[in-house]
């Protein structure tokens, strides 16, 4: 006899973990299918001598470089930015940096405020209770009172250390009269919920062996499974199934040895990130009901991909600041140039986050700013820069454009033979103007902070860590894929919990908002349980 769950969640990352815990704790029978495994923290490379070698191969941010069996290739020949992600319980949070900013009120109203793109069908105020709840679940370290934000609840933990570089840049911004604030991070500054605090090792983007950096394998899945959720790992979903009425009935999945299974459910929630979710909707095309892909009557599935153009501006002081050390999220942030200024040649803006620069290999074989230098000059360069720098990581708001998209590659497949997603994406002229302005200001910032030398790595390709927009939210089914509850217009028992639903990208790191939205979606599902349409 086949077993039917109340809710099937596809993907056990940030959004999947949050939704699963809430639904299981509210009495839903939840099954989650995740293509990756539980992460083994003892295998994380950060404390090992080969750390900087590992992050260039087996622990690369790119699934194409890692090429593990649980990874699927992302074809990006026609993209200015390479998509980056991690496939495991905890999802891309296993390798994320952990910066945890909320979006701002204007981020939800860019059409009204700035005449570009579209407004969201929800407002910042709709998310505030969920932001507050998620901060508690995650264990966020930060300081309330940032004048870049409307007032909100205090964070559960004190801010992480500023470090020598953060302190200098804070003073530099005070001299300039520019905004700065300690960055909120999903990283523990003190023991919390049975987890240990950050030890400032600075290896966050290859996994936090200490467990100080939040990821849902730590913060949500143990509680979800304790509440009865079933998490099946090594389970790669190949398509969502539908009944003659057009309702989702579950999903077909393949186990590690390629054996096909079907999981039935009353409700299906996609939480596979903005590339994985778009891919699955397109893979679920059905000649009779949805020839162009499931939930795609608007034609927008896969379109409007946003990835945040990303630049790094590094400054070097004359003396040591232990620039390899410290949490990689960010010590301080600046929103000085975040909101629209009508005197500029662009609208919207960017968020800045101050990060460490890495170890010796990162200096001489740079993945971010800098050039390779060999011969005698190599030592001169290392002597001048090593341990003396910090980088402003600049995330520019990426406005949605329909040609920037995910579709299915006609040739390449994953290890199960399922078509790989193909990404076509161009950084717009608008983004280029926005980023050029921000880069120049960031150099000013670092000079004012005492740096003797600065360098700009402009719009680096290896930076597609924020994946958004491929199944946008909206009130009109002709111009959006899901409604404001993240329920597919075309398939009322199909929900999307991840950042596919983002209408616009904001200029901040998205995961705080992704998880707040996932919690809201799950909460509304609980509230509207009795009205939910389900298959016969």
């Amino acid at each position, binding site marked *: 006899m086949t077993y039917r769950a109340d809710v099937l969640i596809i993907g056990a990352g940030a959004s999947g973990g949050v939704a699963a815990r809430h639904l299981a704790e509210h009495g839903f029978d939840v099954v989650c299918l995740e293509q990756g495994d539980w992460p083994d923290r003892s295998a994380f490379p950060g404390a090992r001598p080969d750390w900087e*070698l590992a992050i260039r191969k087996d622990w690369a941010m790119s699934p194409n470089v890692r090429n593990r069996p649980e990874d699927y290739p992302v074809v990006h020949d026609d993209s200015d930015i390479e998509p980056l992600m991690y496939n495991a319980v905890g999802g891309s949070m296993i390798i994320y940096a952990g910066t945890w900013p909320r979006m701002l009120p204007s981020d939800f109203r860019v059409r009204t*405020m700035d005449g570009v793109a579209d407004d969201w069908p929800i407002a910042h105020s709709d998310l505030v209770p969920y932001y507050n709840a998620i901060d508690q679940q995650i264990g966020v370290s930060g300081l309330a009172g940032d004048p870049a934000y409307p007032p909100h609840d205090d964070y559960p933990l004190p801010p992480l250390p500023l470090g020598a570089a953060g302190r200098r840049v804070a003073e530099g911004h005070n001299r300039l009269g520019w905004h700065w604030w300690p960055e909120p991070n999903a990283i523990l*500054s003190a023991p919390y919920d049975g987890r240990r605090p950050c030890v400032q*090792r600075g290896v966050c983007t290859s996994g936090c062996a200490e467990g100080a950096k939040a990821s849902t394998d730590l913060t949500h899945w143990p509680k979800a499974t304790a509440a009865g959720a079933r998490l099946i790992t090594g389970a790669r979903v190949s398509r969502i199934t539908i009944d003659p009425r057009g309702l989702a009935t579950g999903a077909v999945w393949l186990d590690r040895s390629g054996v096909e299974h079907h999981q039935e459910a009353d409700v299906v929630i996609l939480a596979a990130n903005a590339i994985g979710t778009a891919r699955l909707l397109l893979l679920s095309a059905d000649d009779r009901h949805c020839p162009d892909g499931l939930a795609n009557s608007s034609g927008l599935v896969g379109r409007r991909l946003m990835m945040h153009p990303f630049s790094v501006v590094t400054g070097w002081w004359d003396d040591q600041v232990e620039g390899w050390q410290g949490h990689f999220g960010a010590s301080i942030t600046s929103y000085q140039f975040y909101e629209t200024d009508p005197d500029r040649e662009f609208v919207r803006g960017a968020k800045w986050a101050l990060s460490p620069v890495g170890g010796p290999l990162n200096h001489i074989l740079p993945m971010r700013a800098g050039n390779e230098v060999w011969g005698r000059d190599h030592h001169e360069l290392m002597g001048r820069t*090593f341990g003396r720098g910090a980088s402003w990581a600049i995330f520019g708001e990426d406005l949605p454009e329909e040609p920037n998209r995910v579709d299915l590659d006609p040739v390449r497949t994953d290890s199960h033979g399922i078509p790989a997603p193909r990404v076509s994406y161009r950084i717009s002229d608008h983004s280029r103007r926005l980023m050029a302005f921000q880069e120049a200001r960031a150099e000013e910032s670092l000079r004012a902070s005492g740096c003797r030398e600065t360098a700009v790595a402009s719009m680096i390709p290896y930076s597609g860590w924020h994946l958004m927009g491929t199944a946008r939210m909206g009130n009109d089914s002709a111009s959006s894929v899901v409604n404001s509850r993240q329920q597919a217009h075309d398939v009322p028992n199909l929900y999307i919990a991840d950042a596919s639903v983002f209408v616009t990208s904001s200029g901040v790191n998205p995961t705080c908002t992704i998880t707040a939205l996932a919690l809201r979606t799950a909460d509304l599902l609980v509230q509207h349980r009795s009205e939910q349409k389900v298959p016969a």
Partner: protein
Amino acid sequence: MTTPTSPAPTADIDIHRLTALADVMLPAAHGMPAVSEVKAVESYLPQVLGWRKDLHQPLVRAVDALDPSLFSIDRLSALHEEDEDAYVALTTAVAACYYLSPVVRELIGYPGQAAKTYDPFAYTEWVAEGLLDPVVDRGPIWREVPG
């Protein structure tokens, strides 16, 4: 997945030849030793290739392709154009061996990615000192939205 691994056999790589190439890439200068002076290649190459097996074959190609007596930084750049994988393997392996040397780490002041302790409430000192006051005093910078 990379886990602590045993050293890889390197019999198919001419260590002397690779060291000679590495000495051109990282010679003695500015108070730093050459690769050969700290025996970086012979000491660490097996371990580096144990960790990064994917570098092995392209490194063999690089060592075969480059004549130490004619080698220069320009020739290294040319290798980048001719065979990118070989270039990446050579630069990565040489740099990794060199910066694993305790002598070199000591000289650049790098203890590795070390764990540190700190007082999570130390922030109260810089708050009390007034570091954030100018930011707070300028008032809100977010924009109110209609509706």
